[in-house]
């Protein structure tokens, strides 16, 4: 068995989710190759070659692959992937965008967001917003899979010395082009990789009040998240949303402030090790999953918490 892992990167640095994906590949067993596709991606390829357990790094460096346009990358992955038993990508916005296109080109069903490996052809994945876990078996000659990063502990980023090989194939479908992007700036740890996450919901009342959470987060070295209600109300940008339709996190500590705990929000955080809920409504569903619940006004509790930690 040989497994192809698609590297997740922004053109300059290798994203940590790649390490979790390689960990899933290691659980399946077999040789692991990593594909780095993009433009001017020498540094990413170098980082990929250092990942523990990686046998070979394939580098497709071409203008057509800049910005990870799926119309151009999917044919490349499908072509390379024919020789592999498994193709894996992280269930990031890129992975979700590209991989189903690859699966359809290979005429196989995809398995999305696996959280564990049962055997080389059998995997588990959450369905119905995490309210059920399905065990799925694939009979496809090439198994195409996206990996939920929080389901797998990352492999070491250092210690490997994989051979680096250039891929000459160029696919340019010419049906799409990149126009621009607007990335949210943040000095805090990345939401999906943070050890502690502090999230606010509708109970924060406005965007300005999130300063209380930022102050607490900075003291804890935490990332700040939000519920959909807080995003829709315009308190914070949408890339902070935690939930079924936002980001899936599983930190050591998740502090939910002013969040009622709708099914869709729980889908994004209920695998956290310890959950703390601060809410003034003691009937809020969030208390059913919280390890520690505090029924209190968040505007008094959060500043006090910040002082005490």
């Amino acid at each position: 068995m040989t497994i192809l892992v698609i590297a997740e990167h922004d053109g300059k640095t290798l994203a940590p989710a790649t390490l979790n994906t390689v960990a899933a590949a290691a659980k399946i067993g077999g040789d692991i190759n990593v594909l780095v596709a993009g433009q001017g991606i020498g540094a990413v390829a170098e980082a990929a070659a250092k990942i523990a357990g990686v046998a070979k790094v394939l580098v497709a460096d071409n203008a057509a692959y800049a910005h990870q346009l799926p119309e151009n990358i999917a044919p490349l992955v499908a072509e390379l992937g024919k020789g592999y038993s498994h193709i894996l990508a992280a269930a990031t916005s890129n992975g979700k965008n590209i991989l189903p296109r690859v699966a359809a080109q290979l005429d196989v069903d995809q398995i999305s967001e696996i959280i564990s490996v049962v055997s080389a052809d059998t995997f588990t994945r959450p369905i119905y917003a995490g309210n059920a876990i399905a065990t799925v078996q694939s009979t496809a000659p090439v198994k195409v899979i996206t990996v939920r990063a929080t389901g797998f502990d990352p492999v070491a980023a250092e210690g490997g010395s994989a051979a680096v090989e250039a891929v000459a194939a160029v696919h340019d479908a010419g049906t799409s082009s990149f126009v621009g992007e607007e990335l949210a700036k943040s000095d805090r740890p990345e939401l999906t990789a943070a050890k502690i996450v502090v999230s606010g919901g509708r109970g924060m009342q406005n965007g300005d009040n999130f300063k209380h959470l930022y102050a607490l987060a900075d003291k804890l070295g935490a990332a700040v998240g939000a519920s959909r209600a807080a995003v829709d109300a315009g308190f914070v940008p949408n890339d902070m949303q935690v939930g079924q339709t936002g980001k899936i996190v599983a930190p050591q500590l998740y502090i939910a402030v002013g969040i009622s705990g709708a099914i869709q929000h729980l889908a994004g955080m209920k695998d956290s090790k310890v959950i703390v809920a601060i809410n003034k409504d003691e009937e809020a569903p969030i208390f059913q999953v919280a390890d520690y619940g505090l029924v209190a006004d968040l505007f008094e509790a959060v500043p006090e918490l910040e002082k005490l930690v």
Partner: protein
Amino acid sequence: MKVLVAVKRVVDYNVKVRVKADNSGVDLANVKMSMNPFCEIAVEEAVRLKEKGVATEIVVVSIGPTTAQEQLRTALALGADRAILVESAEDLTSLAVAKLLKAVVDKEQPQLVILGKQAIDSDNNQTGQMLAALTGYGQGTFASKVEVAGDKVAVTREIDGGAQTVSLSLPAIITTDLRLNEPRYASLPNIMKAKKKPLEVLTPEALGVSTASTNKTLKVEAPAARSAGIKVKSVAELVEKLKNEAKVI
């Protein structure tokens, strides 16, 4: 131009589903069913494109059981012009659905196909991308803004770090994210009118599509339950517990 919108009948998003005792799946008997929330957004976007004069006809398609006609009627009440049901009693995979949609696209020749980004039952997030692969069209997934200009469509997409805008040649495939729009409600007169709009019923066999799958669900289980937590009385007690009991700060 013609816009094709795909909608799925799913368990209502407010329902807390239960896993069947024999682990064969989740219990959907007597559970409220609705149009998938992302599909509602897709229908709304198509209707807005028509109101702007960009779209001339909206065809809504669903692949599923006979009862999915309810969701098609809902879409017709929201402003779609006609509906197609590809009737299939079995549970189809995303690839099978994408192949059936490809057959409908070949038949209808729409300039734009709008789907939801994922169905809240299977949580797959695959069908739109697979349809794009099968048709060879460009794909604008997780769209939060759609602007048609001439023979191109600019799609602003929600990505992990923020937003990205891509330009696609028409025809193209778009999948909707939550923030694309706020779907409207169907008015009673429109619900009455929708009953008279055309609804065509097809079968996978008639479309010449095989729905064979390479995936098999072996079992469905309830997730591990979290052990019951405790309520603390003060912030000081909370901090003490987090430091000494949970040891997470």
